[in-house]
C-alpha cells in the first residue's frame, strides 16, 4: 500500500501519504493527507466538509481499494446514501462489498443522565469493531463535535478525544475529522488542538455576489505544502481542486506547426501557421470577425482529426453553429463526430477561479489538442483586470504544460488601442493577431495584422480581412498615393488599373495600325516607281531594237542593191 501512495522520487523517510482521490487535492498536498494520522477538515456550514471527507473515503475504497469507515454524528446512513447517490456513488453496493461501513452515532441529550465518571469506550468499541470488520484503512468522523452537545462533562470529553486520536493513530488508520468553524477558532471546540498533523480549511466566499469555494492547507506537519488558497468546485463529480501549476518556465515546446484554417493567414505566418502548443491572441473591436477566425481554427483542428474544445462566453453552441454556417463553416458535423465540444456559460455563472477550475476539468476530461476561449474580455465582468490576468497566466501555463494550443479572443473596447490588448496578456501569448476597423469613404473594412509571432518569420503587411459566404479570405490592401485603400476604394482602384491597361493596349493598337498603313502606302509607291522604271526601260529597249532592225533592213537592202547592180553589169557585158 505504501508503494502506491508514495511517489517514486520520495525517499522512504518522507512522511507517508494517503491519496484522497479528490481531483487536484493530491497535487497541492504533494500526495494527499498524512497516512495513518488524523486530518482535520474545518469550515463553515455548507463549505463542503462532509463531502470532502466522504469523497476521500469512497474514492479510497473504489480507486485505491482501501476500505473505509464512515462514522456520522449528524446524518443517518440512509440520508448519507441518498446524498452521495447524486454524485454517482453507490454506498449500498460498497457496503455489501465490505468496502465501506457506515455507523450513525446518535446522541440525544435529553435521554441521558450523567451519574459520575465515565469514558467513551462505547464509541471506541464501535469504531474498533467497524474498522476491524472490514479491515478499514480510512475513517471519517463527521462531526465529532456533536459529542459536546450530547454530553456535559467537558473535561472527560476532551480527555477522551485526545485518547481517541491517539488510539486511531495507533491503529494506523487515516482519519478525516470534520469540524465546524467557531469564533476565533478553526473549530468550535478547538479540535485543532488534538489533530495536529494536518488541518484543512474550506471556505465559501462571496465577492460581488459571486461565490467562490476555497481550500487552504492551514497546517501540514512534516510535509511541504502549498499555502495558497486554492479554488475548488463541487459539481456532479464531486470536488475538484485547482492546483496552481508551477510557474517555472520549463515547459517542453514543439516545433510542429498547425494551420490556422485560413490559408492566407498561414501564408502570413511563414507559410505554415502557428506552433503547436502555443498561445494565440486574436484581438479586435466589436464585429471584426474574431469568432470567425476562432471557428476556422477549430475547423482546422477537427480536420486534422484532433479534438477541440470551444469555451464560449457570449454565444450559445447553437448560435455559434448557425452563425458559422453563414460563412460556409459547418461546425455541426464536427460536434457530431465528437471532435468539437462547445462549452457555453455566462461569465457571471460563477467566479473567475471557478471558471478556471471548470475549464481545467473540461480539458482534463475531453483531452483536446486545441482550446478556444471566446472571449476572455467577458471575464472581466466577474473580476478585475489584474485577476483576469492572473487567471490567464495560470491557464496558459497549464495548457502549455499539456501541449495544448490555445486561442483567445479579446474585445478591444476602444478602437485605438493599437498597442495593448485589454487584458495585458499580449506579453504572455506567443502570437498576437489583431483585427482592426479601417474606416474610409463612409465604409468600415477590416484590416488584419500580425502584431507578433514568436519564433517564426511573419508578414509585416496589413491584409484586408474579408468575410464572404464561402469563408474568410485575406487580400493585400492597395497601397495607393493616398495611403492604404480597402474595401470599395480598393476595388475602385483595381478597376482603375484595369481601365488603364485597357486604354493603353488600345492606344498601342492604333499606332500599330498606322504604321501598317504607312508601310502599305510606301510599298505602293515603291511599286509604282518600279512600274515607271520598267516602262522607261522598255521604251528605251524598244528604240534600240528599232535601230537594230532598221540597220539590219538597210544592210539587207544595200546588199540587195549591190547584188542587183552587179547582175545588171554582167548583162551589159554580154550584150556588148
Amino acid at each position, binding site marked *: 500500500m505504501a508503494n502506491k501512495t508514495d511517489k517514486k522520487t520520495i525517499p522512504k523517510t518522507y512522511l507517508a501519504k494517503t491519496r484522497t482521490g479528490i481531483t487536484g487535492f493530491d497535487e497541492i498536498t504533494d500526495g494527499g493527507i498524512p497516512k495513518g494520522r488524523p486530518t482535520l477538515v474545518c469550515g463553515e456550514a455548507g463549505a463542503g466538509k462532509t463531502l470532502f471527507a466522504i469523497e476521500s473515503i469512497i474514492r479510497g475504497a473504489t480507486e485505491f481499494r482501501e476500505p473505509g469507515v464512515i462514522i456520522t454524528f449528524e446524518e443517518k446512513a440512509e440520508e448519507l446514501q441518498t446524498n452521495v447517490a447524486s454524485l454517482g456513488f453507490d454506498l449500498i453496493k460498497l457496503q455489501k462489498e465490505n468496502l465501506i461501513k457506515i*455507523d450513525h*452515532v*446518535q*446522541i440525544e441529550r435529553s*435521554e*441521558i*443522565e*450523567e*451519574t*459520575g*465518571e*465515565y*469514558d*467513551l*469506550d*462505547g*464509541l471506541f*468499541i*464501535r469504531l*474498533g*469493531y*467497524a474498522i476491524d470488520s472490514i479491515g478499514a484503512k480510512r475513517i471519517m468522523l463527521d462531526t465529532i463535535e456533536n*459529542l459536546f452537545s*450530547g*454530553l456535559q462533562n467537558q473535561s472527560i470529553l476532551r480527555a477522551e478525544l485526545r485518547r481517541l486520536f491517539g488510539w486511531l493513530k495507533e491503529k494506523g488508520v487515516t482519519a478525516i475529522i470534520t469540524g465546524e468553524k467557531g469564533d476565533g477558532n478553526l473549530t468550535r471546540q478547538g479540535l485543532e488542538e488534538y489533530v495536529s498533523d494536518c488541518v484543512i480549511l474550506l471556505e465559501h466566499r462571496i465577492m460581488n455576489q459571486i461565490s467562490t469555494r476555497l481550500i487552504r492547507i492551514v497546517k501540514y506537519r512534516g510535509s511541504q505544502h502549498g499555502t495558497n488558497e486554492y479554488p475548488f468546485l463541487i459539481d456532479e463529480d464531486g470536488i475538484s481542486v485547482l492546483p496552481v501549476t508551477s510557474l517555472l518556465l520549463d515547459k517542453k515546446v514543439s516545433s510542429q506547426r498547425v494551420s490556422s484554417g485560413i490559408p492566407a493567414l498561414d501564408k502570413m505566418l511563414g507559410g505554415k501557421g502557428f506552433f503547436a502548443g502555443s498561445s494565440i491572441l486574436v484581438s479586435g473591436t466589436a464585429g471584426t470577425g474574431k469568432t470567425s477566425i476562432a471557428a476556422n481554427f477549430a475547423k482546422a483542428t477537427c480536420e486534422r482529426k484532433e479534438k477541440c474544445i470551444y469555451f464560449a462566453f457570449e454565444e450559445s453552441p447553437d448560435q455559434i453553429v448557425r452563425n458559422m454556417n453563414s460563412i460556409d463553416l459547418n461546425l455541426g458535423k464536427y460536434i457530431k463526430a465528437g471532435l468539437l465540444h462547445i462549452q457555453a456559460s455566462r461569465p457571471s455563472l460563477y467566479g473567475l477561479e471557478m471558471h478556471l477550475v471548470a475549464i481545467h476539468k473540461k480539458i482534463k476530461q475531453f483531452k483536446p489538442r486545441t482550446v478556444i476561449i471566446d472571449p476572455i474580455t467577458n471575464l472581466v465582468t466577474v473580476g478585475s483586470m489584474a485577476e483576469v490576468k492572473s487567471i490567464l497566466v495560470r491557464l496558459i501555463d497549464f495548457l502549455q504544460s499539456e501541449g495544448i494550443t490555445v486561442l483567445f479572443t479579446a474585445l478591444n473596447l476602444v478602437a485605438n488601442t493599437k498597442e495593448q490588448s485589454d487584458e495585458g496578456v499580449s506579453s504572455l501569448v506567443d502570437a498576437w493577431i489583431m483585427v482592426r476597423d479601417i474606416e474610409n469613404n463612409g465604409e468600415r473594412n477590416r484590416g488584419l495584422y500580425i502584431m507578433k509571432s514568436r519564433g517564426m518569420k511573419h508578414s509585416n503587411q496589413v491584409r484586408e480581412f474579408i468575410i464572404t459566404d464561402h469563408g474568410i479570405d485575406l487580400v493585400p490592401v492597395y497601397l495607393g498615393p493616398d495611403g492604404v485603400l480597402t474595401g470599395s476604394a480598393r476595388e475602385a482602384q483595381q478597376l482603375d488599373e484595369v481601365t488603364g491597361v485597357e486604354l493603353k493596349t488600345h492606344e498601342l493598337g492604333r499606332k500599330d495600325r498606322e504604321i501598317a498603313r504607312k508601310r502599305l502606302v510606301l510599298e505602293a509607291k515603291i511599286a509604282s516607281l518600279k512600274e515607271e522604271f520598267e516602262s522607261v526601260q522598255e521604251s528605251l529597249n524598244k528604240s534600240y531594237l528599232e535601230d537594230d532592225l532598221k540597220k539590219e533592213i538597210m544592210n539587207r537592202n544595200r546588199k540587195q542593191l549591190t547584188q542587183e547592180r552587179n547582175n545588171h553589169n554582167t548583162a551589159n557585158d554580154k550584150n556588148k
Partner: protein
Amino acid sequence: MPKKTEYVLRLYVTGASPNSIKAINNIKSICEIYLAGKYALEIVDIYQEAEVAKKEQIIALPLLIKKFPLPEKRLIGDMSETEKVLKGLGLQS
C-alpha cells in the same frame, strides 16, 4: 409468593475497568436498597458483544438502560451520584 419484576435494567460495561467495577457495585447496592425484590439487572460486557454497541447506540460507558417501566432511560457514569441515579430511575423526583 412470587416477586414481581417491575424494573428491567441493563448495565453495559467494559470488562473489568475501574469505572465498570464501580458502576456494578454502585447499581447493585442502589437496587438492593430501593428496589429489593422487584428488579432484574443484566450486566453486559460490551467487549464481548461489539455489535450491540452499534445497535444500542452506545457511546459513553458505563451505561445503564432502564428498559422498563417506560419511558426508556439512559444513565451513564459510574453510578456514584446516587441522587442522579434515583432520579434517572424515576425513584425520586
